C-alpha cells in the first residue's frame, strides 16, 4: 500500500482536493445515470399503462380505430 495512514490517503500528498473532486464528480455522474436509466424504463411503463387504457377506451367507442402494429421480427423473440 502506498499510504501509511487514512489521513495520508485523504490528503493525497496535498493534492487531495483535486483528486477527490475528480473521483467525486465521476462517481456521482455515473451512479446517477445508472439509476436514471433504470428509472426511465419504469416511468415509461407507467406512461404506457395509461396509454393503453386510453387506447382501449377509444377502440371500444369506435372499433374501426384499432391499430395493428409490430413487425415480422416480433416472432423471433418467442412468446
Amino acid at each position: 500500500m502506498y499510504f501509511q495512514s487514512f489521513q495520508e490517503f485523504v490528503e493525497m500528498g496535498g493534492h487531495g482536493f483535486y483528486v477527490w473532486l475528480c473521483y467525486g464528480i465521476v462517481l456521482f455522474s455515473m451512479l446517477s445515470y445508472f439509476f436514471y436509466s433504470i428509472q426511465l424504463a419504469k416511468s415509461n411503463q407507467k406512461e404506457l399503462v395509461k396509454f393503453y387504457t386510453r387506447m382501449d377506451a377509444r377502440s371500444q367507442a369506435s372499433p374501426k380505430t384499432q391499430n395493428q402494429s409490430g413487425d415480422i421480427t416480433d416472432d423471433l423473440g418467442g412468446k
Partner: protein
Amino acid sequence: MWTWFFQLASPKWVYRFSDKLLPWFRAATLILFVVGLVLGLLFSPVDYQQGNTVRILYIHVPAAFLSMFVYVLMAISGGIGFIWRIKMAHIVSVSCAPIGAIFTFLALVTGAVWGKPTWGTYWVWDARLTSELILLFLYLGFMALHNAFDDRKTADRASAVLALVGLVNIPIIHFSVEWWNSLHQGATISKFEKPSMDVDMLKALLMMIAAFQVYFITVLLQRVKAEILEREKLSGWVKKLVTNE
C-alpha cells in the same frame, strides 16, 4: 445458424435478452470498479513529478477512451440503421448518445482539474482538448437534432447522418498529440511498443478501462430497454408485458 444474428434486429428479442444479461453485467461492473479503484487508489505508485494527482489517470483515461468508443458505436449503428433501415440499430444509436456525452464531459472536467496542479491551467486551446470539446458538442448536437423532429424515422435518419459526418473527429482526437504540438502528453499504450508505464499503474488503468466498458454496456442495455418500450408501444408483446405485471 444465422438466426441469432437476425435476432439482433428484433426489439422484442433484444429486450428479453437484456433482461437476462443485465444482472451479470451489473455484478461485473461493481466487481471491476471495486478492484480497479483499490488498485488505483491504494496499490499504485505516485508519479515522481505529479505526486498523487496522477491517480486522476484512472478515471480520466477510461472516460476519454469510452467517449470515443461510444461515438464510434453510435455512428456505426446509426449508419446501419440508415443504410439497411433496421430500427433496432437506431434504438442503439440514440441510446448511446447521452452516455457518450457524459463520458466526454467527465474526460474534459477531470482533465481540467488535473491540469490545474500539473500544467498550471484548467484549459488550453490545443488540438487534443479542443477536439474533445468538439466531440461533446457533436453528442449534444446529435441529441438536439433528434429532438427537433416530430417524425421519429426522420429524426433517426438525420441524427445518423450527423453522427457519421462527425466521425472524422475521432482520429483527429486520437492523433492530435502526434500531429500537433500539444500540452497534452502523447500515447502511452501503443500496439507496437512496450508501454512506458509502470506495471502497477498499467494494471490499475486496464482494470478501470474494463470497468468503464462494462458499465457502459450495462447502462446502454438499461437505456435501450426504456427506448424499446416507448417505440414498440403499439405492438402486442409490449402491451402484454406492461399490463400483465
